[in-house]
């Protein structure tokens, strides 16, 4: 495959808070190949968004945040770039779309103004050229009658439309990588499907890689090729999407899978939940980070943190007992309980 488009090595993102320094992302490593859609999943507070924003270095580095490790974009370490050079990367090489399209556009400007501005930050075009390009971008993202829409203000558009505008903006400079931070969470299901189709389409047409951050495993199954599962600032499992869904290894991933409501079968059955909540970042368990909520945890888990180890192929998992658990489950399946 050669050099991956994006390679993250042992990334740590620290924040200075009133209660001291916390490490929201602790030693994450993954890579994104050209044209691939990588899913990053995990529940709220596990560091997905922080990872996304760290890639673009969006946190205030003077006071609140600091980074360790490497984020290599085509071999170049973004964490070593100067502020000005980083601004050239943002929106140009790597773009981002956000969770809440309702507040991602500046209410005082027309969408046309905001689109042309983004185009003109990175490319030398006259206002007219940029304006025409903006219309094309809006058309590409499936906004009906873009000539008319372009002069409207964000509040005149629906949520789905605004997310399309955000995507148009992110695509303005044909970035090689799009980071989508829960782009469909705030939208209703039909619009969600449309936006996902759009992202898939653009991924195929433009060959743009996507890092898709979500807590929705259904969405992951639909569009991603590979998945990284995060828990409390660490990668706990990484696999191709088929492997992850057919053979989840980490107890946390298993828990996530079980907690998807099933439409078939006995619906009076209670939904499976993972007990407890994600521990606070100021209070990270000493051993395995999931040990406090894991039904398989024993003394080893509580004492010593496991490493991310290769299971087979590209399937990696961070668990002491994943092999035992898999064996036990295989036996349970072999002997039906009734």
């Amino acid at each position, binding site marked *: 495959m050669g050099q991956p488009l994006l390679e993250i090595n042992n990334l740590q993102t620290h924040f200075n808070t009133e209660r001291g320094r916390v490490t929201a992302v602790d030693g994450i490593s993954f890579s994104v190949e050209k044209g691939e859609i990588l899913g990053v999943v995990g529940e709220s507070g596990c560091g997905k968004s922080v990872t996304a924003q760290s890639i673009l270095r969006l946190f205030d580095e003077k006071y609140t945040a600091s980074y360790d490790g490497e984020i290599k974009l085509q071999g170049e370490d973004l964490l070593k770039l100067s502020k000005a050079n980083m601004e050239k990367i*943002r929106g140009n090489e790597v773009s981002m779309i956000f969770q809440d399209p309702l507040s991602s556009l500046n209410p005082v400007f027309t969408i046309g103004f905001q689109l042309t*501005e983004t185009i003109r930050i990175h490319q030398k075009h006259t206002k007219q050229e940029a304006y025409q390009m903006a219309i094309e971008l809006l058309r590409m993202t499936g906004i009906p009658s873009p000539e008319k829409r372009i*002069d409207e203000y964000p509040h005149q558009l629906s949520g789905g439309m605004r997310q399309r505008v955000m995507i148009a903006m992110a695509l303005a400079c044909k970035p090689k990588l799009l980071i989508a931070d829960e782009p469909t969470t705030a939208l209703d299901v039909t619009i969600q499907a449309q936006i996902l189709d759009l992202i898939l389409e653009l991924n195929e047409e433009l060959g743009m890689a996507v890092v898709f951050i979500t807590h929705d495993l259904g969405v992951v199954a639909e569009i991603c090729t590979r998945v990284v599962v995060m828990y409390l600032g660490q990668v706990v499992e990484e696999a191709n999407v088929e492997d992850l869904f057919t053979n989840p290894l980490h107890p946390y991933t298993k828990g996530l899978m079980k907690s998807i409501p099933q439409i078939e079968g006995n619906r009076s059955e209670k939904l499976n939940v993972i007990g407890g909540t994600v521990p606070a970042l100021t209070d990270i368990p000493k051993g395995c980070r999931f040990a406090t909520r894991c039904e398989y945890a024993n003394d080893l888990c509580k004492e010593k943190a496991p490493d991310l180890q290769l299971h087979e192929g590209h399937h990696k998992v961070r668990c002491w007992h994943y092999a035992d658990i898999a064996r036990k489950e295989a036996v349970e399946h072999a002997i039906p309980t009734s």
Partner: protein
Amino acid sequence: MNAVEVNANPKRVKHDLKRQERALWLRRFFSNKWMVTGSIIIVLLLLLAILGPKLTPYDPYKMVVKERLEAPSAHHLLGTDNFGRDLLTRIIYGAKVSMWVGFASALLSSIIGLAIGLTASYFRYLDNILMRICDGLLAFPAILFAIALMAVLGAKTENVIIALTIVFSPEVARIVRSRALVVREETYIEAIRSQGASAARIIWKHIAPNTISPLLVKATFVFSEAVIVEATLSFLGAGVPAPDPSWGNILSDGKDVIYTGWWMTVFPAAFIILSVLGLNLLGDGLRDLIDPQSTSK
């Protein structure tokens, strides 16, 4: 179907849209009766200040001892003052001074306040320094502070503007800062940052316009406050110096003859009240009008 129509003549559609938008703004403006009232008062006062000096046949400085303290009549519409000068003419020239001082200090303190507020909100290390200085300045009562500044600067119309700008800039800065602090945390600022915008572009192009509506409202109130403070300073003899007419120093002259020449107190006071009332009505109306979220109503 619609799209085809639009493709056929996008220019016309855009033109229509602009017109619709303008119509909407006008309708919203006229639906607010108080704001219309305020605007009319201010427009009339401005016209009076600009055109009045050309219309009046009297010289505001020329004293006619024989005609001193005449009651309002057809000859002198608002009567004459204690030096026999036409009171209406003096008030018209005073309006010029008051409007100019009010406008200039509102404009200057808006610009300075905007710059300070935005800087403080975006560069956190300057925030404490700038805001503590502002707090210090705000700790003085406006009038007392202005008197002190005038004592240092000397009584002159330009100095009144400078003093009022120093007095009111911190107030504007606080408002701009608090609005900017909210705006800078908005997702759209993060979004434009993720598109590669520089700090200067974010501050001036994206945060600044979002602070304009509270700023504009504040500016009209600063305008009206400046009119009051200028009148007070002139009344106390620390503002616009003597032969130049100002509503404040006409009032001050009038207080000595309040029993014999009530008109010298009543009319300039009425103008002060009217202008402040007009500006406040305008400011209130602007606040409702500008808020982008209230377009739908």
